[in-house]
C-alpha cells in the first residue's frame, strides 16, 4: 500500500510493546490519514505475544508485520537491517518511523544507508507540505531547530519519546497480522553477557513522565537519597548534572545534557543545578521546569516555569511531604 507509514516496534524483550511505540503509531496515523494511508507496525522479535499484538492494534496499527525468529534477539543491526530492508523494498512504503531508543537509533541509521534515503534522527515535530513530509529536529544541543525534508521516500525518522501523543485507543480492535517470508541472516556478533543495571525501582530516565535531577549542589552521593525519596512519591526517575556524574556521585547513564541523555518529561525538577547551556540541552524540551537553587542569579531560572530560591536540603524534603499529602488525598 503506497501510503503506509511503518512503525518499528520497541518492546520490553518479553513480548510487550513499550508506550513509545504507541506514540510513534499515533503520530504516524495522523500523518498517514492526510495522505489517505495508514499506520502499520513492524515487529521484529524472538517472541511476540497475543496481548502485544492486540496492544499494537489498539494503538492504531492497521496491520502488524511480524518477523518472529530466534536470531532477532538480542537486537543486532547486521541481522535486523537486511531483513527490514527486504521487507520495505517488497512493499514500497511511504515512511518508516522508529523511536529514539538504543536499538532503533542505530537500526534506522543503518536502514537509511542500506536503502539510500535520508534519515531525520530525534525528530520532535512533523508536518506535510504539498504532500511531502517536513520534520523538525533540535540541533546544536537544542539551541536551534532544523527543519528537514527528504529528496525521495521512504521517509525515515526516529521520534523523541514523550513528545508525540497517543491516539485514542481503539479498544477491542483485532490486529491484522502478516507473517511475511523474509530471509533473516544469522549475524556474526554474539552476546556474551548482559549486565542488568541494579534496579532503582524507578522508571527509565527517557520514558519517565517526571524527572527529579540533582547537581553539584547535592554536595555528595549520599544526599541523592533525598531525591530518591521524592521520586518514589511521584513515580519519577532520578537524573543528574555532569558535575554530579563526574564527581562519581551518580553513574554516567543518569547524566542529562549535551553529553548525556536528552529527556522531555512532563515535569522536570532540578535541585542544586546551575543550568549550564550543556545541561539545558538535555532537558529544555521538558513541558514544565521547576528549579530549586540558592542562587537567585542561577541561569536555570531563565528556563524554569517555577522557581524557588532556597536551600535544597530544606526545600526537597518539604516538597516530598507536600506531594505525599496531595497524592494521598
Amino acid at each position, binding site marked *: 500500500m503506497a501510503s503506509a507509514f511503518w512503525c518499528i516496534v520497541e518492546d520490553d524483550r518479553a513480548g510487550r510493546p513499550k508506550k513509545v511505540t504507541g506514540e510513534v503509531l499515533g503520530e504516524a496515523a495522523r500523518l498517514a490519514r492526510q495522505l489517505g494511508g495508514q499506520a502499520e507496525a513492524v515487529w521484529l522479535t524472538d517472541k511476540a505475544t497475543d496481548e502485544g499484538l492486540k496492544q499494537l492494534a489498539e494503538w492504531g496499527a492497521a496491520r502488524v508485520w511480524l518477523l518472529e525468529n530466534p536470531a532477532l534477539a538480542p537486537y543486532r*543491526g547486521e541481522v535486523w537491517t537486511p531483513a527490514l530492508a527486504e521487507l520495505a523494498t517488497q512493499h514500497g512504503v511511504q515512511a518508516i518511523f522508529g523511536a529514539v*531508543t*538504543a*536499538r532503533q537509533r542505530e*537500526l534506522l*541509521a*543503518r536502514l*537509511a*544507508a542500506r536503502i*539510500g*534515503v*535520508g534519515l531525520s534522527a*530525534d525528530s520532535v515535530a512533523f508536518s506535510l507540505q504539498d504532500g511531502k513530509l517536513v520534520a523538525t*529536529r*533540535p*540541533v*546544536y544541543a*537544542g*539551541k*536551534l*531547530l*532544523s*527543519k*528537514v525534508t*527528504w*529528496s525521495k521516500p521512504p521517509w525515515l525518522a526516529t521520534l523523541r519519546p514523550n513528545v508525540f501523543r497517543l491516539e485514542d485507543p481503539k479498544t477491542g480492535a483485532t490486529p491484522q497480522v502478516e507473517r511475511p517470508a523474509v530471509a533473516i541472516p544469522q*549475524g556474526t*556478533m*554474539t*552476546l*556474551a553477557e*548482559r*549486565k*542488568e*543495571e541494579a*534496579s532503582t525501582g524507578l522508571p527509565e530516565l527517557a520514558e519517565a513522565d517526571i524527572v527529579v535531577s540533582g547537581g553539584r549542589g547535592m554536595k555528595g552521593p549520599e544526599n541523592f537519597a533525598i531525591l530518591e525519596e521524592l521520586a518514589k512519591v*511521584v513515580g519519577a526517575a532520578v537524573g543528574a548534572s555532569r558535575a554530579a556524574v563526574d564527581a562519581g556521585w551518580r553513574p*554516567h547513564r543518569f*547524566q542529562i545534557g*549535551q*553529553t548525556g541523555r536528552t529527556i522531555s518529561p512532563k515535569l522536570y525538577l532540578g535541585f542544586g543545578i546551575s543550568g549550564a*547551556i*550543556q545541561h539545558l540541552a538535555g532537558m529544555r524540551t521538558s*513541558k*514544565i*521546569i521547576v528549579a530549586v537553587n540558592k542562587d*537567585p542569579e542561577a541561569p536555570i*531560572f*531563565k*528556563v524554569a*516555569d*517555577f*522557581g524557588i*530560591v*532556597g*536551600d535544597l536540603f530544606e*526545600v526537597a524534603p*518539604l516538597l516530598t511531604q*507536600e506531594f505525599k499529602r*496531595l497524592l494521598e488525598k
Partner: protein
Amino acid sequence: MKILVPVKQVPDTATQVKIGADPKGIDTAGITWIVSPYDEYALEEALRIKEKQGQGEVVAVTVGPERAKEALRSCLAMGADRALHLSDPAWENADSLTVARALAAVIKQEAPPLVLFGRQAIDDDMGAMPAQVADLLGWPCASWIMEETISEDGKSVRAGRQVEGALEIFTIPLPCVLSAQKGLNEPRYPTLKGIMGAKKKEIKDVKAADLGLAADGAQLLVVALEALPPRPPGRIIPGEPAEAVKELVRSLREDAKAI
C-alpha cells in the same frame, strides 16, 4: 593494529549559535571550533589500544572544510600518528549519507580492522554516522560502548554497549565499527611535546576523485534553521520554604496540571 578514528569539527559547546544569512546554516563568525567531545573518547580509546598492544597506528579522518584541519591537528597532538582530510566541493552541504559514503570509501582503502567513532557529533546531533558506515561496509557494529577489549589473537573485540537498563557485552569479529559513549574513558590533554610533534605529522588531503566518488546529491535536505519558540516567562515563588513549597505544589496541580 591499525585503528581509524573519524572525527568532526564542531562549535564549542558554550557557543551561542546564531542562524546565518542563509537560514540553512549558522553564522560561523567568531565561533571557537573543537573536536566533537564524543570523538575524543573514541580517539583516547584507540590510543589506549595502541599503547596496550605496544604497536599499531591510529589514523584520524575528517570530512570538512579547510578549517577542519585544526581538528585533525588536535588529534595528532593527542597522539594520532597521521591524519586524512577529506575535502572537496562534492562534500559541501553533504548530508549524513554522503559523508558516510566518503568515510566508507576511505576505510576500504585504508583497510583497518577497527573503526572507532564518537556516538554522535554535537552540531547536527544526528548520530547516524557509525551505523551508516558499518552498513555500507557490511560490518557489524556496536553503538554507545562503555568498555572494550581486543582479543589476544587480534581477531575479535568484546564490547559492552549501553542499552536501556543494561550493558550488553558482545563478542564481535573484526573488522567492525564501534561508537564511544561518555564513560568509556577520560580523554588525555595534549602535552606540549605532543603539540610540537603534531606539526611534523602528516595530514593528507583526499579528494572525492581519489576515492572514486562523484557528487551524489543529499537525501536529507535542510529547509531552514529556526530559533526555539520562547518559553513563557517563569515565576519565582517567594516566601518561607514551607509556604513556597505549598504554593509550588498547588500551582503544579492546578495551574500547570503537571501532577
